[in-house]
């Protein structure tokens, strides 16, 4: 029983991180109708920004992590937002009128560029992410051990998701985002500047990816330029699972994938870890392609 509970906590912790990344995918898909393959790599860059920044910021606060950590987080988020917006402007915007396949391939190209460029710039060897969040055991019974890291991850992810929810449902720009995701043309007819909305979406998505990266690197402190590939793909699956374009769905999908993955690794076999997300994907696409919470889109002739 305690092992079960422990695995559930591990799974929710992992799933929260996937959820944050999935939100970015689902927002961009909702607005632009394409999979931003490079999103996982923006996540990776976020981790590296944190890696290079932390040793400079922490001494500024005299080693006080409670103050330093949020600063590192915010700067990472800002850095990734910049990266995301730049990618959108340079690589995706020129292709807006082109067939989707072209943009997809371009996204793959950007993704590969970030990965291998990262290997060149940061070096391909795994690096140790500095401890940003003071780690300690919170619950320590013979049955259950909860490390503060898991708590911090879950709480932070939840807080950010609530923040996102607020932005999307309670602000003007959020309403504009939702309008554009329903129908580009009607939205622009209403006077919404599509470019601004798209840029803002990328800012939001990339920030969440950066936050996810800092949390991920806190729990799994070995970072390397290829670290975004699998979390990115799994987060995409999570977005599809929950219903692509649906925010709550992305969060739900992330949690489901995180917990399922942890369970399969713990109880069946760890070597199937990477295949789980894809198996879930294929099942969902075969049986309920619109996702758990999504709405069905039909192809207009």
């Amino acid at each position, binding site marked *: 029983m305690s092992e079960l509970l422990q695995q559930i906590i591990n799974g929710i912790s992992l799933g929260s991180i996937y959820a944050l990344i999935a939100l970015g995918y689902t927002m961009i898909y909702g607005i632009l109708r394409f999979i931003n393959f490079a999103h996982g790599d923006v996540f990776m860059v976020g981790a590296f920004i944190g890696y290079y920044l932390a040793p400079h910021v922490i001494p500024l606060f005299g080693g006080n992590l409670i103050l330093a950590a949020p600063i590192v987080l915010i700067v990472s988020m800002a850095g990734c937002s910049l990266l995301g917006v730049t990618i959108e402007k340079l690589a995706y915007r020129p292709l807006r009128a082109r067939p989707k396949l072209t943009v997809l391939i371009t996204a793959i190209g950007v993704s590969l560029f970030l990965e291998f460029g990262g290997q060149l710039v940061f070096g391909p060897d795994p690096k140790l992410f500095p401890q940003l969040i003071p780690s300690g055991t919170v619950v320590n019974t013979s049955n259950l051990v909860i490390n503060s890291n898991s708590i911090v991850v879950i709480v932070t992810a939840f807080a950010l998701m609530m923040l996102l929810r607020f932005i999307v449902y309670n602000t003007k720009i959020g309403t504009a985002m939702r309008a554009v995701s329903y129908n580009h043309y009607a939205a622009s007819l209403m006077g919404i500047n599509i470019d601004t909305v798209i840029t803002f979406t990328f800012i939001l998505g990339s920030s969440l990816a950066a936050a996810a990266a800092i949390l991920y690197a806190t729990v799994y402190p070995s970072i390397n330029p290829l670290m975004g590939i699998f979390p990115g793909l799994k987060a995409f699956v999570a977005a599809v699972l929950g219903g692509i374009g649906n925010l709550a769905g992305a969060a739900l999908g992330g949690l489901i994938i995180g917990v399922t993955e942890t369970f399969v690794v713990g109880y069946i076999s760890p070597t199937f870890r990477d295949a789980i997300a*894809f198996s879930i994907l294929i099942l969902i696409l075969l049986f309920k392609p619109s996702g758990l919470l999504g709405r069905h889109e039909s192809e207009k002739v």
Partner: protein
Amino acid sequence: MKLDKSIVFLISAFVISGLATTIENRLNPYYFQILIYIGIYIILASSLNIINGYAGQFSLGHAGFMAIGAYTSAVITSALHVSRGSVFSFPAFAIALLFGGIVASLFGLIVGIPSLRLKGDYLAITTLGFGEIIRVIVQNLDFLGAARGFTGIPKLTNSFWVFSTVALVIFVIYNLVNSTYGKAFLAVRDDEVAAEAVGISSTRVKVVAFVTGAFFAGIAGGLYAHFVTYINPMQFSFIKSFEIVVMVIIGGMGSLLGVILSATLLTILPEALRGVAQYRMVIYSLLLVIIMITRPQGLFVKRRSIKKNAAPQTELS
């Protein structure tokens, strides 16, 4: 070229590559290796071209078919205890390769079926997923060497096998494209709904595309395995799939000659640039993005009319 002329091409290719085998020992082994790789990648890229370029199904899991072909053929040659140089090796290798292709095409069928309902991005990710699932399954099968790999594969691949297969692939693609059947492929690629409306079974086209493409990818996998003599699942990851996709895109999807040229170019390039090896993938990916923005039809293809401001579509065009 009509059918009979292309048969002449095929037979002469068989003969020439057979003759080439007798002199291949004189060639510098390093250059010979590159030549073999060129042949294998031409087969891989062309087989993917059938799926992506001609039938318009964006598949990102091609390395999975290659893996199946590689492992199947390796298991057969090792079960038959084939060794290089024995008289028995010729028919045994033929059987192994053929089986590799057939099993791969069976998986092509399995992957092709969900593809019937999916489009564009979803199809891409699903095929990527299939490729990865295949890799993970192999990684868990101990009798295939699991993650540690399959060693001791007899080095049976030579110029005859590789270039005969290249010729065969070219033969098949050429005749496919120039037949009415091939026109059905292109119709489905360009506008599936319209194609269905005129009575073309898009289901059949897609399935045939996947099965054929997978078949040749499987054979390429077998050729690869019996050249490098050691295979492990990580060699068939989605990164390998991407490399093949890049070849097809840069060559021009649907262009037979273009893909052959780009496969050749992209096989030689890493070796020629060995001094700047770590920049290679960075340059590739940048190249990919630039080409997509400026010349999406590929480097070696004449500009086809792309309807730039066509009515927006909800799905992949």
